[in-house]
């Protein structure tokens, strides 16, 4: 029953005749596929398109902010631009990015399953994503919304003229995509693990997706009902958010952040998972404190639900509630700290190689540290009174979301690129691009911390002159950042057509995904693998024939 070949790899001797990419070329074979890997590709394409669109909006923001006056864009347009930017980036790019693309592709392979537990639901969730995305896009093109991505009442319900309901409906539908993906992952992890793949042999990538999925299932329905109520309020003034007849606009904020704070962990936990993989695999040793990293993900998911009020310190919420939320905000930072320390400790006595994904992992740690620690500034009540709704907050969340999750996403994409496409990207260009991204990113967002402390409020189309210098830095940085992000688009696309063929296991790593062909066959493994080694096991038990690989590698190089 034990498939010796499957274990003694890097050495899959011959390519399977048909892999998941070559298994059907018609449009229908893509659009009606139930193969998780193909669905991941569908997501990859569409999510990237949304990223490009969100990035285009970001460019408009930065260009407008080059000068103090609102000259390039009138306030009216500017307000829509940052709203669209936020909505697209959050709901249509970052939330589905790692889970729906890399998670979808890898989780079944990593646990040795043929597919997710519910392939049809998986496809359905992509269609929900598309339907929600299409509706939102339609509304944006027809005129869009200007409420900010937070949709605060009573502005959104009574005063805004935009297509609030259409966009709301789009996000509502998209929410089901998220819920179904989460549901699928949880069930898959519970029931589809290969023989021998115990919970504590799971790659941390899987653990962190498990935690993410919990948040998706527990949080997303609340935003759905909230949006429904907002739409009803707008349509018919049901009164619950309308102070004129006894409603409470702050209730909306409670409901919104009940989802949206945990949602920021949807936007970082998958990144944690990727980084754990990268750090451990590229130092070629077991990760330090496996259990702590695994459980800290769960802890973040659970405690993440208890702190939403930290977005409402100055909203008129009771100050005693603020106290509780501030305290718990500090508590929820601890599991993140544990992860960071464990990553650093993993490097100790490793055999570290500096491939591009590892570069991204390093950048991730640095930027997430800054982003996370500035989160503490915002969790400290006395300080956040000054900082809230300024550019300090903008800088904070771009450090965690772009410096964190987006870099993790890029790192992961590079790391598994050979597996996904069967081709190698250019190591040279990818390193250049990574460095450009890092430099550009910091130049864009570091000045915003200073701007924020100086008091520049966010969502401002025009601003006082004395803030201009820092804004110029920021805009300059954004241009560099854009170059750094467009480069991968080019060399990755190039590699698909002209790249070198990737071996099954280019780095001689022990994870199950490296024990099948690149790209994998439709059913992932020729035969159900049987797992006899621990996660990140490089020793003999892993069954990797490193000696042989080294020899072959010498020949190759």
């Amino acid at each position, binding site marked *: *029953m034990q498939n010796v070949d499957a274990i003694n790899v890097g050495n899959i001797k011959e390519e399977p005749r*048909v892999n998941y990419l070559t*298994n059907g070329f018609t449009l229908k074979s893509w659009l009606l596929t139930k193969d998780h890997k193909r669905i991941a590709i569908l997501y990859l394409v569409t999510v990237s398109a949304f990223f490009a669109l969100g990035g285009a909006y970001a460019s408009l923001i930065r260009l407008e902010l080059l000068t103090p006056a609102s000259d390039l864009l009138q306030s009216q347009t500017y307000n829509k631009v940052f709203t669209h930017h936020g909505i697209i980036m959050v709901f249509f790019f970052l939330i589905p990015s790692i889970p729906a693309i890399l998670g979808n592709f890898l989780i079944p392979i990593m646990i040795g*399953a*043929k*597919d*997710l*537990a*519910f*392939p049809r639901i998986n496809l359905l969730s992509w269609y929900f994503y598309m339907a929600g995305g299409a509706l939102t896009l339609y509304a944006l093109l027809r005129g869009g919304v200007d409420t900010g991505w937070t949709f605060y009442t009573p502005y959104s319900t009574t005063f805004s003229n935009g297509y609030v309901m259409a966009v709301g409906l789009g996000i509502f539908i998209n929410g089901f995509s998220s*819920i179904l993906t*989460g*549901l*699928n992952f*949880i*069930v*898959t992890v*519970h*029931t*589809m693990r290969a023989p021998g793949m115990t919970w504590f042999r799971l790659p941390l990538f899987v653990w962190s997706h498990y935690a993410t999925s919990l948040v998706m*299932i*527990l*949080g*997303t*329905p*609340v935003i*759905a*009902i*909230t949006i*429904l*109520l907002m739409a*009803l309020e707008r*349509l*018919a*003034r*049901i*009164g*619950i958010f*309308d102070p*004129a*007849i*006894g*409603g*409470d606009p702050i*209730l909306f904020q*409670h*409901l919104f952040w*009940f989802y949206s704070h945990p949602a920021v962990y949807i936007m970082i936990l998958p990144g944690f998972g990727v980084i754990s993989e990268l750090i451990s695999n590229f130092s070629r040793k077991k990760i330090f404190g496996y259990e702590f990293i695994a459980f800290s993900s769960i802890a973040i998911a659970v405690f993440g639900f208890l702190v939403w009020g930290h977005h409402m310190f100055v909203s008129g919420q009771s100050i005693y509630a603020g106290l509780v939320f501030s305290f718990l905000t500090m508590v929820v930072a601890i599991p993140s700290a544990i992860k960071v320390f464990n990553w650093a400790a993993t490097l100790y006595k490793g055999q570290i190689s500096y491939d591009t994904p590892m570069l991204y992992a390093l950048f991730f740690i640095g930027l997430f540290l800054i982003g996370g620690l500035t989160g503490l500034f915002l969790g400290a009540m006395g300080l956040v009174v000054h900082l809230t709704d300024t550019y300090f907050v903008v800088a904070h969340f771009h450090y965690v979301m772009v410096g964190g999750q987006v870099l993790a996403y890029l790192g992961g994409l590079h790391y598994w690129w050979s597996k996904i496409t069967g081709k190698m990207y250019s190591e040279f260009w990818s390193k250049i691009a990574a460095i450009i991204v890092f430099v550009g990113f910091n130049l864009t967002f570091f000045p915003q911390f200073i701007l924020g402390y100086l008091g520049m409020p966010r969502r401002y189309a025009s601003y006082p002159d004395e803030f201009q210098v820092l804004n110029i830095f920021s805009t300059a940085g954004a241009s560099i950042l854009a170059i750094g992000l467009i480069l991968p688009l080019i060399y990755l696309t190039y590699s698909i057509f002209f790249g070198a063929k990737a071996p099954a296991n280019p780095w001689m790593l022990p994870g199950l995904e490296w024990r099948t062909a690149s790209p994998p*066959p*439709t*059913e992932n493994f*020729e*035969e*159900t693998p049987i797992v006899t080694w621990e996660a990140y096991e490089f020793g003999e038990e892993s069954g990797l024939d490193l000696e042989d690989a080294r020899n072959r590698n010498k020949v190759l190089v």
Partner: protein
Amino acid sequence: MATHADALHDHHYHAPGLQHQFEDMGQQQESASIGMWMFLVQEIMFFGGMFTVYLVFRSKYPMAFAAGSNHLDAFWGGLNTLVLIVSSLTMALAVRYAQLGKRNLQVIFIILTMIFGTVFLGVKAIEYTKKYKEGIVPVAGLNMRTAKTASTHPGGRELSTRTGDTQDPRESLNTGVSESNTHETGEHSYYNPTGTFVWTDASLAAQAQQGGYLTDSEKIGYFSNGELNANKFRDKVRIFFWIYFVMTGLHALHMIIGLGVMAWLLWKAWMGTFSAAYYSPVEMSGLYWHFVDIVWIFLFPLLYLLGRHFLHGGAGH
């Protein structure tokens, strides 16, 4: 697709319903049940958002909620509760007979479940119609634009002349310009921003005022003109009715979806798809059905009964 080798070592019983990604029926069934439970957790949070809203406003305006609730018909509500309970029983039995592989009983109980489900929706329809006639159905009654029905409204004189947006009284709040004369002498007319939801009975609030158990929000929210302002009270009752309609509406939507699922199930059962080895669709649909029942178990007392004791027990204490 079929190239993979699991047939070679597949020593499990290969049931008709086994999907390709699973090794055996046990795995498939467990997946289905965990998946269904995750889905139900999702549903709990979905309704939970509404219950939170209910909780907030109930704690703010208990008397308005009681007044609105007393206006609902506890007979129909109670009847529907019983109907749903019976349907839950028949559903449970349908699952049981699916487990036992008894096709005919299974079909019969699915049909019964559907009948009771339909009765429930029928009763709901009767209730909604009644509310419609009384002018308290969303959009149609709660929110009809002012002009049409202004004459029936206590403050109608003023409302009928309004176009809707331009003369919101909030405008006069501290603007520092010309307001003292926009509201004519003496009788203060309270402006109802969204139309005619007619509600004149504020006796419960009066009762609570005498009893001294008004909440802070109520003290501010109901009073005007030296006494209870029925219009202001009405707005809070209106919030109750909105919550009532949204909650029961979402519940009814779940019932309708449930009936769709049942229809599909019926067809499958009729075709003899299910057996003692493969019945998880029936079981999963059952879970869903019972969940919807549970929601109603809470909705019934929280919406229909919460103010009854004020009617029957006299004036508080």
